[in-house]
Each structure stands twice: as structure tokens, then as C-alpha cells.
């Protein structure tokens, strides 16, 4: 209210001197974050006013530019979590059911990349893989007299390192590579680092139900699942990144897209191989004395 009192005085002054430059307060329709920052710094407004930028320019600038808080404030990071529940669910749906021809980033994220989805999808995936792997091993070796259940807790930290490294370092490398190519070949489509992280994070979602289904101890079933989920999430990635490289040299474009799919496949296959024991592999039995007295080591297949 103190500020409004000041502006009332200014109105009186204006009546006295109609030619003075004026400062007008924001429209109520503006984003609240911007309004807070402007209310906190009325001095800045006056400086801009003296520099000659008029009000319509400023509102347009701020309308398109969201992340205006400096990076050491908490509000800056809040802009990365500016999503509602239905938006997150829509993005997850868009990553699981890719619409052919529609770009995931343009359709769902263009205005508003978020970090909530990538972070929590990766966390869920880490624990899902660890828990499913443990359960699957338990069921495979159930009934064998020599098997003793162990929780295998160390594998959680390994899973966490792998998945978070994939979800953050690969986008970093890809973003750097795309920036470098952008400086050589003018591309129409270019993505910011956060948008790439977003795409990668949401594309990992399909592996969560896949990991749960990997508990089924059949090799064929597991590999069919790998192929299926790889096709779905790989297609999301390919459809996102093909427009960004297609203006480039043909071979480089194909190599880039191929590498993206290859790394994605490596992640899936690596997780399957490391966390899930193969179904037909028996737990090696100890030495059992055969009926004729000699010790025989038996190991089936």
C-alpha cells in the first residue's frame, strides 16, 4: 500500500505537470513472478524509463521471456517446475504413444521445459529396476535348496549412477554436438539444453512398465519387451531430433540419429543383462557325492 501511496502523489504531480514522463504499473494479466520482481525494484523502472524504452516494448519482452530471475535465486529454479499434474501426465502419454509426424518437443514442451518429469522418472526407474531385478532373481532361484535370498542393495547405487548419467550426460553431449553443427550449418530447428533433457527424461518412462514385466522369467518375453519399448521411445527420440539434423550433411545426420538409438538400446540391454539373471542359468550346485562314492560336480546347461 505504501507503493500505491507514492503513485498517488505521482498522479497529483502529473496533473501539475502534464508533460513529464510517466511510469505505468503492470497489467493484472501478467505472470505473477514478473510482477513481484517489478514491485521489488521500482528504481529499475525509472532507469529504463530514462533510457527511453517505452512500456509496450517492455511488456512484450517480458511476455516472451520467462526465466528473468537471476540464477542464484530460488525463483529461477522454480520456473523449471512450473507444470501442473495434467501437463506431466500429457507429456508422459506423448512419450509412450508417439504420434507419427508430430514432434514431442514442439507439441508438448515448446513453451515450458520442466525438470520434474526427468528427475522423478529417473528416480522411479532406478528403484523399479533394482526391485524388479531382485524379485526376478528370487523367483528364478526359488525352490533351489542352496539358494539364499540376498537383497542386493549395492545394485541400487549402480543403477542410480547409470541411469542419471545417461539422462543428463548424453543430452549434454548431444546439445554440445548440435550447437557445434549449428554454427556450421544453419538449422531451422534448434533445441535448448533443457528441452533435450526433457525429451530424454520422458522417453525413459516406457522402461518403467518394461522393467516390471521383465520379472517374467522367459527369455523370449524379455527380448520382445526390449524391442517393443526400444521402438516406442526410440521413435520419440528420432522424430524429435531428425528435424534438427536433416539440413546437415546426410552422413552426419544419419550417424547422429543412429548414435542416439544405439545408446538408448545399450541402456536397455545393459540393464537387462546386469540386473536380471538369465532364466535358464542354474545356480551352480555344490559338490554332491555320487552314489558310487566319487564326488561329482553337477551343473546343468
Amino acid at each position, binding site marked *: 500500500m505504501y507503493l500505491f501511496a507514492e503513485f498517488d502523489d505521482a498522479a497529483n504531480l502529473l496533473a501539475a505537470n502534464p508533460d513529464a514522463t510517466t511510469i505505468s504499473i503492470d497489467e493484472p494479466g501478467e505472470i505473477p513472478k514478473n510482477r513481484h520482481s517489478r514491485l521489488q525494484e521500482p528504481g529499475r523502472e525509472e532507469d529504463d524509463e530514462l533510457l527511453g524504452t517505452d512500456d509496450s516494448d517492455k511488456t512484450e519482452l517480458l511476455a516472451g521471456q520467462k526465466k528473468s530471475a537471476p540464477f542464484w535465486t*530460488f525463483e529461477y529454479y*522454480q520456473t523449471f517446475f512450473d*507444470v*501442473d499434474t495434467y501437463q*506431466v501426465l500429457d507429456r508422459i502419454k506423448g512419450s509412450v504413444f508417439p504420434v507419427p509426424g508430430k514432434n514431442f518437443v514442439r507439441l508438448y514442451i515448446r513453451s515450458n521445459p520442466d525438470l520434474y518429469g526427468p528427475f522423478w522418472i529417473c*528416480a522411479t526407474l532406478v*528403484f523399479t529396476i533394482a526391485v524388479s531385478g531382485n524379485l526376478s532373481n528370487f523367483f528364478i532361484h526359488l525352490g533351489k535348496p542352496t539358494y*539364499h535370498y540376498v537383497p542386493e*542393495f549395492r545394485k541400487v547405487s549402480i543403477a542410480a549412477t547409470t541411469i542419471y548419467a545417461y539422462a543428463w550426460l548424453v543430452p549434454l553431449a548431444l546439445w554440445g554436438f548440435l550447437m557445434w553443427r549449428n554454427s556450421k550449418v544453419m538449422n531451422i530447428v534448434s533445441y535448448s539444453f533443457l528441452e533435450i533433457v526433457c525429451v530424454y527424461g520422458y522417453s525413459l518412462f516406457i522402461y518403467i512398465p518394461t522393467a516390471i514385466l521383465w520379472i517374467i522369467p522367459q527369455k523370449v518375453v524379455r527380448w520382445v519387451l526390449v524391442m517393443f519399448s526400444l521402438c516406442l521411445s526410440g521413435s520419440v527420440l528420432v522424430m524429435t531430433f531428425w528435424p534438427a539434423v536433416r539440413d546437415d550433411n546426410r552422413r552426419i545426420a544419419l550417424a547422429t540419429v543412429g548414435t542416439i538409438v544405439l545408446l538408448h538400446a545399450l541402456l536397455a540391454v545393459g540393464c537387462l543383462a546386469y540386473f536380471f539373471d538369465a532364466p535358464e542359468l542354474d545356480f551352480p550346485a555344490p559338490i554332491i557325492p555320487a552314489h558310487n562314492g566319487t564326488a561329482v560336480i553337477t551343473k546343468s546347461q
Partner: protein
Amino acid sequence: MAAAEGSGAAGPLVLKNHQFAGLADVSISEDIPVEGEITVPVGSRSPDEDYSTLDEPVKDTIMRDLKAVGKKFVHVMYPKKSSALLRDWDLWGPLVLCVSLALMLQGGSADSKDDGGPQFAEVFVIIWFGAVVITINSKLLGGTISFFQSLCVLGYCVLPLTVAMLVCRLVLLAGSGTVSFIIRLIVVVAMFGWSTLASTAFLADSQPPNRKALVVYPIFLFYFVISWMILTFTPQ
């Protein structure tokens, strides 16, 4: 003047409405001393009781904190919308629960150290780091709860799971067959549900309404991981 005077003794100054009318005519001449006692009527203690808590016996200090912690435990077990857990947060309860849970999870079987259950440090880190991450997440999504209040609630709501761990250890003393596994499963699932519901009851109101699910899901994941650690505990 008499109308405006205080009651004389150590009591609050009371002015009734009709006495204001007379004050306009009152002029105080300088040689009449004004005396009386004005005390602020906000429930303050008399000066005798107002010694600092440094002077009280140690037993009082400890009992006061213990009573506060115990009251919060009761609030967790019967989650109603009370503000005691939120307003007077403390981290003693979460510390005690975390340490006892981590201690009870020791002694898990392992052929090699790599394949066994979580170590003490791992349980500790998971609980505290997980609670911090969930708190930061809820604040980033626009929640209005303060950092330590949220930590306090999340820590206190580990109580049902600690009780479940205790029950599991007792059941495992009796035997470790299928029946004991089913009992343990039921107990852990029930306590997991209780924990999640209790913490949601305390924390959900401070979130923006269209993001409640986004805040509740990490809490669900957090207690699920702790429940998994409890359920898969196998003794030597």
C-alpha cells in the same frame, strides 16, 4: 482523571467506552503526579516467574522436549489436522526413528558384503537425503510449507514403518517360512499405507491444488523404498 486511572494494583488498564467522553475536557496540570500501574494485558507472567530456561532444572528441560516429541508421535499415529506437528517442528523424533530403523536393519545376511542389505550409512543417507529432496521438490512446485516443517513431518511419519520393522524382527525370531513372510508382507503394506496417508494429510494442504499429485508421488516413492528395505530384511 479518576476515570482514566488504572486499577492501582498489578492489573491491566481498563477504560470503558463512556469514560472516553470525559477525557476531552480533562487537562492535566503539571504538578499533579500521575501514578498507577499499566501492564500489557497479553497473558504475560508476573516478573517472578519470568526467569530464563537456563535456570530450570535439567529434568524439566528434558521432560519438556520429550513430551513434545511424544505428543507428535501420537499425532502421527492418529493423523488429524492438527498444527502441532507443523508449527512446533523439531528434528529429535526423526533422528531417533532414523537411527533405530537403521540399527534394526543391521545384521542382514550376506555372503559377501556387496550383496547384503543396506548398511547403516546407506539407510541414514536414504532417509535424510530423500526427505530433503522431497522437501525441495515441494517447495519448487510452489508449496508454502517451510523447509524444516516438511522435514519434521516426513521424519515423524517414518514411525509406522519403524513399528513394522520391530514387528518383522519379532516375527523372524519365530521362523522364516512362508507364513512369516505373509505376516510380514501384510504388516509392512499396512504400515506403508499408514505412513503415506499420515504425511499426505499433513503436507497436502500447503500445495497448490492442481499439483497435489505431483507432490504426493515422491512421498509415496520414498516410503515405498523404505518399506522394501524392511520387507527384504533377512536375518543371518
